[in-house]
């Protein structure tokens, strides 16, 4: 079984996101270790990009902070290699934009994923229609591209689900990333369609911040992704954010676990 898919076997999965290099690489590294210890099943590491068109203000600003301190994807690869050396075994996924891969050199990028231990990629601007862009290289280097569905996907959801690997990233609602006070249940219908086509686990992201929301989402999905809420804690507490984020991850994992397998 795909390592990423296997991470959904410890009950409902909790998948935190943080922006790599915010506020600096050392803190990101400590945060990832602490999140893994606190029960994160998979961790998404944002590759900072100059123009993140799918992100809300919180993650845009985190990207800018990381770039301002000179964070590069090479530093993130080196960090992943160190984390693997220090016994972090859960799947680590890079979330970035197509040009972070293409502009770096796609083959070199995939080779470094394999060499350092990056299991997968989430590329919001490389949709189903463009899946051939990196398909051969992903295959050659054993890297999984995570597919996304959104409330607007409708008929597309079936085709996307059929080819999904790792897990299916289900965008909860319209718009960009960011904390939302209420999340509609539109995505539930899309998940139902996807499940008719595939056994690949479904994880919901965009807008989730509270344990109550996580519990509700875990009722209809196999996992819950939280980004902006964590990035906001990191923005507020900087280098001192590690225990705060770890405690939050623990609480959120408990919340999704309450919904069973």
């Amino acid at each position: 079984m795909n390592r990423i898919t296997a991470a959904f076997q410890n009950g409902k999965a909790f998948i935190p996101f943080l922006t790599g290099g915010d506020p600096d690489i050392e803190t990101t590294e400590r945060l990832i270790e602490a999140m893994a210890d606190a029960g994160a099943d998979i961790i998404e590491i944002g590759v900072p990009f100059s123009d993140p068109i799918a992100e809300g203000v919180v993650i845009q600003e985190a990207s800018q902070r990381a770039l301002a301190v000179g964070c590069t994807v090479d530093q993130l690869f080196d960090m992943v290699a160190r984390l693997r050396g220090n016994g972090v075994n859960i799947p680590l996924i890079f979330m970035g934009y197509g040009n972070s891969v293409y502009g770096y050199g796609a083959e070199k990028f995939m080779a470094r994923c394999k060499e350092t231990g990056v299991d997968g990629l989430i590329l919001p601007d490389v949709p189903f229609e463009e899946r051939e862009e990196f398909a051969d290289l992903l295959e050659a280097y054993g890297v999984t591209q995570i597919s996304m569905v959104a409330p607007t996907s409708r008929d597309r959801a079936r085709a996307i689900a059929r080819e999904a690997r790792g897990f299916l990233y289900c965008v909860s609602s319209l718009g960009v990333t960011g904390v939302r006070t209420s999340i509609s249940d539109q995505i539930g219908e899309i998940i139902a369609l996807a499940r008719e086509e595939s056994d690949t686990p479904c994880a919901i992201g965009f807008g989730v911040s509270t344990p109550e929301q996580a519990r509700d989402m875990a009722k209809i999905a196999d996992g819950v992704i939280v980004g902006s809420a964590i990035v906001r804690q990191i923005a507020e507490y900087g280098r001192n954010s590690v225990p705060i984020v770890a405690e939050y991850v623990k609480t959120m994992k408990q919340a999704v676990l309450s919904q069973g397998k």
Partner: protein
Amino acid sequence: MSKGRFGPYGGQYAPETMMAALEELETAYEHFKNDPEFQKELDYLLREYAGRPSLLYYAEKMTKDLGGAKIYLKREDLNHTGAHKINNALGQVLLAKKMGKTRVIAETGAGQHGVATATAAALLNMECEVFMGEEDTKRQALNVFRMELLGAKVHPVMSGTRTLKDAVNETMREWVTRIADTHYVIGSCMGPHPFPIIVRDFQKIIGEEIKAQLLEKEGKLPDAVLACVGGGSNAIGAFYDFIGDESVRLVGCEAAGRGVDTYETAATVATGRAGIFHGMKSLFCQDEYGQIAPVYSISAGLDYPGIGPEHAYLALEKRAEYVPVTDDEAVEAFGYLARTEGIIPAVESAHAVAYAMKLAPTMGKDQVLVINLSGRGDKDVAAIARYKGVELYE
């Protein structure tokens, strides 16, 4: 290979939330472009409202002064709202209305596309919101007020470099937030498929008119067609009908800013490389990690780190050539055209005038060079005064 390709370029590199809307747009466009009613309505608006066909003017004084090719100016500056942008804005807003949308959003750099979209929206009873880099709202304050007069809401964009690329980012973010009743009127031949084709189709009337008008005046095809290129909509509009006519040299004039050997440039073909951004694969100014470069030009309309995918392909195939023109050269040409022909061009269009000043003297007197004068320069007068260190009190 995915849809909407120009050789290796183009495609649909857009977030999943946008994909259904792109499909809907493609289906609607494929229907309406062959719908005689739609075409009749658009043709009426272009003639009776926008003032088409625009004139093809023989610039006799400029021709004599430069002493080479006969120079014609395609007067897109005489269109309603003062630029070629109205061709695309009327087309897309009409299309959006036919699709049942009630609201349009747009990005703008210099403000010309924002003004054109606000105008079309006012005429066709659509709600309109325009996103403009905060830096550009300062450079082009007058256009901000024009858009507001036309009933549009203008959002200054505070992210990134606060210029055109950031305005595009923010408009894309807005579109995925409210996509069902809203159409994104992209202003240039860029973005995910089908936008590069839609914008080109609504602009190709420029080249079709040039061809017919010049045949009437000179009985021949032009030897060269020049246009400025940011995203490249006026250039693709002027070039498209001539792509099959191999004797016609097609020259896109890019904004080199302070020079292609500096970081303060926006000349994408000269300094960029292939990348994936703003929904398309094309050429972009970027660093070794694929971070998009903070580009610069005196012209807010050309201050963009990419180029439309069809231009990238024409450059790859060497069917069109792309040349860099600096701020200094453009400002010089701005004044030259004003003094010589009594026409104040947009500083964007002045980039094409500047290269014509170099190219025309190298051509024969029996040859014809057409400059697409994409917009008028009223909006730039204050900025040019600042550039020259002249203080104005309004």
